[in-house]
C-alpha cells in the first residue's frame, strides 16, 4: 500500500481536492434530495388537503340532504387530479354516501373511517387523508381521499438518475481545475525545496529563495531567506569566535606556562625550606642526644662518686649535704632522660621491642620504685588484677614499665593523702590476641576539665602554679601518652577536682610462651597445700589482689572488709570445726588496728590452728611486742609481691616457723666468688667509678681505654667478665667484641656481648653504668 507521506505533493493535492469535493457533493446532494423529497411530500399533502377542502365544502349540502347523485357528481371533480385514485364521502354514522375511483384502480374501498379530526397516513404506495365534515359545528360526515405515490417514486428515480452524471461531471471539472491550478501552489514549494537542497548539498548559505506567491508561501520564502541570512551571519561570527578563541588559548597557555614555572620554583623553594627545616630538626635532635649523653656521663660520675662518698665515714652535716647532692643529681638525670625520650619520640626514632614478658612482673617492677616514695609521703599503694589475664605476652616491657612508673610517680607527686591504685583488668581475648586495661587511680588534687586535653601536650601541666608547687618538666604525661599511642592504645583521663584522677589505657598483645627462670619454675612447682584462708583488708584492691593470686595457687580465700565481719567469719569457721589455715590482716582496718583482729583470732582458737600474716604499706611498719604475743608469722609490706606472698603462704600453710619479719631485704653483698673483670672504657670518670664500685664488691679490676687495648689485654690475661663501652676511640666496643669472639679467647664475655648487641639494635649508645 502506498503511504501517504510517500505520495508527491501534486498527487496529495489532487487526492485531497477530489476526496473533499466528492464528500462535499455527496453531502450537498443528499441534503438536496432530502429537502426535495420533503418538499414533494409537503406538496402532496397540501394538494390532497386542498382537494379535500374543495370537495368537502362542496359536498356539505349533498351530505345534509343525503343527495347521492350530487355527492358522486362532486367527487367526479377529482378526476382532474391525476394522483388521487380514490375518494369517499361518509355520513356522520360512517355509511358511504358517494365513492369515486380512478379508472384502472383495483383496490376496494377503505375500511370505515370516521375520524374526529384530520388524519394523514403514509403507506408504501399511497397517501391517505380523512377528515370530518361539519356544518355549523355539527359533524355531518367525513371525506376520505387516497393519492397514489407513483409520481413521488418516479421523481426520486429521476433525480437519482440525473444526479449520478451530474456528480461525475462535477468531479471531472474539479479534477481539471485542480490539475490546471496545482502548479501555482506546488510550483513555489518545489522551487523552495530545490533551493533548500542546494543549500544543504553545497553548504552555500549565500543562496536565496525566489519570491513566492501567496501569503503563507511568500512568508515561508522570506523566513527561509531570513534563516539563511542568520545562519550565514552566525557562521561568520562562529569563525570569528573560533579565531579569537585560538588567540585566547595561546595567550592563556603562555600565562599557564608562566604560572607553572613559578609554581615549580615555589615548590623547589618549599622543598628546600622543608629539607632545611628537617635538617635543623635533625640537628636539634642530634644535639639533644649528644648533649644528653655528654651530660649523663658526668652525671654518672657525680652520682657514683656521691654514693661512694656516702659510704665513707662522714659527719652528719656532710652526709646531709651529700644526700641533697644525690637527690639533685637523680632529679637532673630524670629530666635529662625525659628530654631524651621526648626528643626520640618526636623524631620517630623510638622502636618498640617485641619480646615475651610477664605483665605481672612488669607491674611489680613498676610499683617497686614508686613504693619508696609513696611510703615516704604516707600514701597507700595498692594494685589489683581482674579477669583471666594471661601473664605472658609479647611486647615492650621496658616501655610499659616506663609508662606505669611515670603514671604512678605522677599520682604520688600530686597526692597528699590517701592511696594510689594500679589496676590491671583483662578485657577480652581470643587465644592469640588479648587486651587489658591499665588504670592508675589517685586521691589527689584532680585535674579541671578545661586542662584535661592540655596536660598530654609537651611542657604542660594542669596549670603553671602546679609546676611551681610540684616541680617537673611536664614531659612525663606527654611521653607516656605517645608511648601508649605507639603501643596501639590511648591514654585517657577521668578526674574530679579535689577527689582524684584516674589515668587509664587499653593495650593489646599477642600471647607468649611462658618463660620462667628455672628457680621460679622450681618455686611454682612446689604446689601449695589446698587450704582456706581469710583475707581482711579495708581496701578492696588489696582483697582482690590476694584473692586473684591465691585462687590461682589453689587456695580458697574468704574476704572481709571490716574487723567485725572478719571476726564473725573466723568464729563461724571455728564453729564448723575447720578454722582458716591462714589469716592475712591489713594493719589498718578502716582506722582500727589489725592487731585487734589477731587478738580475736587467738582468743577463738588455739594458736596453731591459724597462721597470721600482717600487711601494711606504712613505712613505720616494724616488729613490736605484739608480733610475739599473737604469734604473727610474717609482716608483708605493700604493694605485695607475688613471690614473697607465695613463699609466705607456703611457710604458713606448711607450718614453717621460720619467721621473716619484713620482705624488704638489704641489698645482698656479692660475696664469695671474686671475679677478674676487664673494664674497657675511655672516660676516666667512668673508669674510676666502675673500678671503685667493683673493687668495693671485692672483684679484681683491670682498666683499658679502648677495644684494641682490650684485645691485647685479653691475649695476655684471663678475665671472667669484660665490661665494654661501645663508643671508644681507636677501636669501638662492637668491633672489639667481634674480634674477641673470633679469636674465641674467652667464653665469659656475656655482659660485653649483650651490651654490644643492644648497641647495634638501638643504633645509639646505651649507658648501663648505673651505679645502683
Amino acid at each position, binding site marked *: 500500500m502506498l503511504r501517504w507521506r510517500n505520495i508527491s505533493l501534486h498527487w496529495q493535492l489532487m487526492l485531497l481536492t477530489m476526496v473533499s469535493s466528492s464528500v462535499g457533493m455527496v453531502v450537498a446532494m443528499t441534503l438536496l434530495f432530502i429537502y426535495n423529497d420533503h418538499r414533494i411530500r409537503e406538496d402532496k399533502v397540501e394538494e390532497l388537503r386542498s382537494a379535500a377542502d374543495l370537495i368537502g365544502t362542496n359536498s356539505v*349540502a349533498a351530505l345534509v340532504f343525503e343527495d347521492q347523485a350530487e355527492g358522486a357528481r362532486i367527487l367526479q371533480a377529482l378526476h382532474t387530479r391525476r394522483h388521487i385514485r380514490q375518494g369517499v364521502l361518509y355520513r356522520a354514522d360512517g355509511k358511504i354516501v358517494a365513492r369515486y375511483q380512478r379508472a384502472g384502480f383495483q383496490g376496494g374501498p377503505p375500511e370505515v373511517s370516521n375520524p374526529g379530526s384530520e388524519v394523514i397516513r403514509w403507506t408504501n404506495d399511497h397517501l391517505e387523508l380523512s377528515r370530518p365534515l361539519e356544518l355549523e359545528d355539527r359533524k355531518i360526515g367525513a371525506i376520505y381521499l387516497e393519492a397514489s405515490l407513483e409520481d413521488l417514486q418516479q421523481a426520486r428515480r429521476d433525480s437519482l438518475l440525473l444526479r449520478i452524471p451530474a456528480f461525475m461531471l462535477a468531479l471531472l471539472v474539479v479534477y481539471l481545475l485542480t490539475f490546471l491550478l496545482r502548479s501555482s501552489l506546488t510550483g513555489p514549494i518545489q522551487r523552495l525545496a530545490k533551493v533548500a537542497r542546494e543549500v544543504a548539498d553545497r553548504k552555500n548559505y549565500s543562496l536565496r529563495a525566489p519570491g513566492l506567491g501567496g501569503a503563507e508561501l511568500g512568508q515561508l520564502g522570506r523566513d527561509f531567506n531570513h534563516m539563511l541570512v542568520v545562519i550565514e551571519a552566525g557562521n561568520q561570527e562562529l569563525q570569528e569566535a573560533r579565531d579569537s578563541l585560538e588567540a585566547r588559548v595561546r595567550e592563556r597557555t603562555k600565562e599557564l606556562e608562566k604560572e607553572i614555572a613559578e609554581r615549580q620554583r615555589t615548590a623547589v623553594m618549599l622543598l628546600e625550606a622543608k629539607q632545611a627545616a628537617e635538617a635543623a630538626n635533625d640537628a636539634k635532635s642530634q644535639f639533644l642526644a649528644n648533649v644528653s649523653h655528654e651530660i649523663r656521663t658526668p652525671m654518672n660520675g657525680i652520682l657514683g662518686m656521691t654514693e661512694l662518698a656516702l659510704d665513707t665515714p662522714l659527719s652528719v652535716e656532710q652526709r646531709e649535704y651529700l644526700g641533697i647532692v644525690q637527690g639533685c643529681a637523680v632529679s637532673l638525670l630524670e629530666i635529662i632522660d625525659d628530654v631524651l625520650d621526648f626528643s626520640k619520640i618526636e623524631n620517630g626514632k623510638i622502636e618498640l621491642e617485641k619480646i615475651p614478658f610477664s605483665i605481672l612482673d612488669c607491674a611489680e617492677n613498676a610499683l617497686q620504685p614508686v613504693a619508696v616514695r609513696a611510703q615516704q609521703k604516707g600514701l597507700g599503694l595498692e594494685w589489683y588484677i581482674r579477669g583471666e589475664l594471661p601473664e605472658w605476652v609479647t611486647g615492650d616491657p621496658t616501655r610499659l614499665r616506663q609508662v606505669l612508673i611515670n603514671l604512678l610517680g605522677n599520682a604520688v607527686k600530686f597526692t597528699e593523702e590517701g592511696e594510689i591504685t594500679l589496676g590491671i583488668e583483662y578485657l577480652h581475648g581470643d587465644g592469640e590476641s588479648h587486651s587489658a586495661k591499665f588504670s592508675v587511680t589517685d586521691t589527689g588534687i584532680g585535674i579541671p576539665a578545661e586542662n584535661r586535653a592540655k596536660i598530654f601536650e609537651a611542657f604542660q601541666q594542669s596549670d603553671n602554679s602546679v609546676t611551681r608547687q610540684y616541680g617537673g618538666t611536664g614531659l612525663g604525661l606527654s611521653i607516656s601518652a605517645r608511648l601508649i599511642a605507639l603501643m596501639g592504645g590511648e591514654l585517657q583521663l577521668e578526674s574530679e577536682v579535689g577527689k582524684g584522677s584516674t589515668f587509664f589505657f587499653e593495650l593489646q598483645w599477642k600471647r607468649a610462651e611462658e618463660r620462667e627462670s628455672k628457680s621460679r619454675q622450681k618455686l611454682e612447682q612446689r604446689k601449695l597445700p589446698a587450704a582456706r584462708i581469710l583475707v581482711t583488708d579495708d581496701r578492696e584492691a588489696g582483697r582482690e589482689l590476694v584473692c586473684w593470686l591465691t585462687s590461682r595457687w589453689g587456695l580458697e580465700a574468704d574476704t572481709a572488709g571490716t574487723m567485725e565481719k572478719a571476726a564473725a567469719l573466723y568464729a563461724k569457721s571455728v564453729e564448723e570445726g575447720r578454722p582458716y589455715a591462714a589469716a592475712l590482716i591489713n594493719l589498718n582496718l578502716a582506722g582500727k588496728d589489725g592487731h585487734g583482729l589477731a587478738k580475736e583470732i587467738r582468743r577463738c582458737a588455739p594458736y596453731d590452728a591459724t597462721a597470721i600474716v600482717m600487711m601494711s604499706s606504712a613505712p613505720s611498719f616494724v616488729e613490736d611486742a605484739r608480733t610475739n604475743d599473737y604469734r604473727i608469722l610474717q609482716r608483708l609490706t605493700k604493694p605485695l609481691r607475688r613471690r614473697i606472698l607465695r613463699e609466705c603462704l607456703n611457710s604458713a600453710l606448711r607450718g614453717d616457723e621460720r619467721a621473716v619479719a619484713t620482705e624488704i631485704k638489704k641489698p645482698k653483698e656479692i660475696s664469695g666468688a671474686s671475679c677478674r673483670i676487664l673494664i674497657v672504657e675511655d672516660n676516666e670518670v667512668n673508669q674510676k667509678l666502675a673500678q671503685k664500685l667493683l673493687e668495693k664488691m671485692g672483684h679484681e679490676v683491670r682498666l683499658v681505654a679502648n677495644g684494641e687495648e682490650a684485645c691485647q689485654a685479653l691475649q695476655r690475661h684471663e678475665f671472667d667478665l669484660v665490661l665494654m663501652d661501645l663508643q671508644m676511640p681507636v677501636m669501638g666496643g662492637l668491633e672489639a667484641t667481634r674480634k674477641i669472639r673470633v679469636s674465641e679467647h674467652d667464653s665469659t664475655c656475656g655482659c660485653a656481648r649483650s651490651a654490644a648487641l643492644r648497641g647495634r639494635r638501638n643504633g645509639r649508645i646505651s649507658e648501663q653504668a648505673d651505679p645502683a
Partner: protein
Amino acid sequence: MAGCGPAMLLLVLLGGFIPGRVDAQTSSGPDRAEAIYLKKMLSFVQWPTGPGLSEEAFRVCVAGGYRSSYVFAEEMRGTKVEGRKIEVRSVRKEESLKNCQVVFVGTPEPKQRARILESAKGTQMLTVGDNAGFLEAGGILEFTYAGSTMQFAINLRAAKNAGLKIDARLLALAQRVLTEKEAMGI
C-alpha cells in the same frame, strides 16, 4: 291528495336515514318531510342581522288554517338557528306575521296566499310553500314532488328582495332556481 304517494315514499327513504322517527311521521304525512327539509335548509340561509334580534327566539310561523303547526314544532324542537332557539307558531291573521323569520304558507287558496305574501313584502321573512305556483306568486322556497322524490325550488329574486342569502350549495341541490331574470319574465 295527489302529493300523498310520493311523500310517503320519501318518508320511507328518510326513515331509512333517520331511524326512530318513522312511527311519528306515518300519521303526519307530507308535513313532517317538509318540516325536516325546512329545518335542514335553515342552515343554508342567511338572515340579515338586526339589533335586538339575537335576543329573541327564531320564530317559524305556520299560516293557513288547517295546516297543523304541531308537526313543525315537534321536528324543530331543540334546533337553533344562528344561536337562537326556534319557536313554532300557528298564525291566523296576517298582522301576526310581523315577528316571524320563516312563514310556512300552507293554504292552497290563492287569495289568502296572496294576502299573506303581500304582508310579507318588505320584511325579511323566508316564505315557504308547497303548492304549485307558489314561487310565481312571489314565494321564496317551494317544495315540489317529481315522481317519488321530494324536491325544492327557489325564487332567488324574492330571496334577494327579502334580504336573504341562499347558500350556493343549497341552490346546487334545488330542482329549479327562479333567477331574477325569470321572475321578471313572469
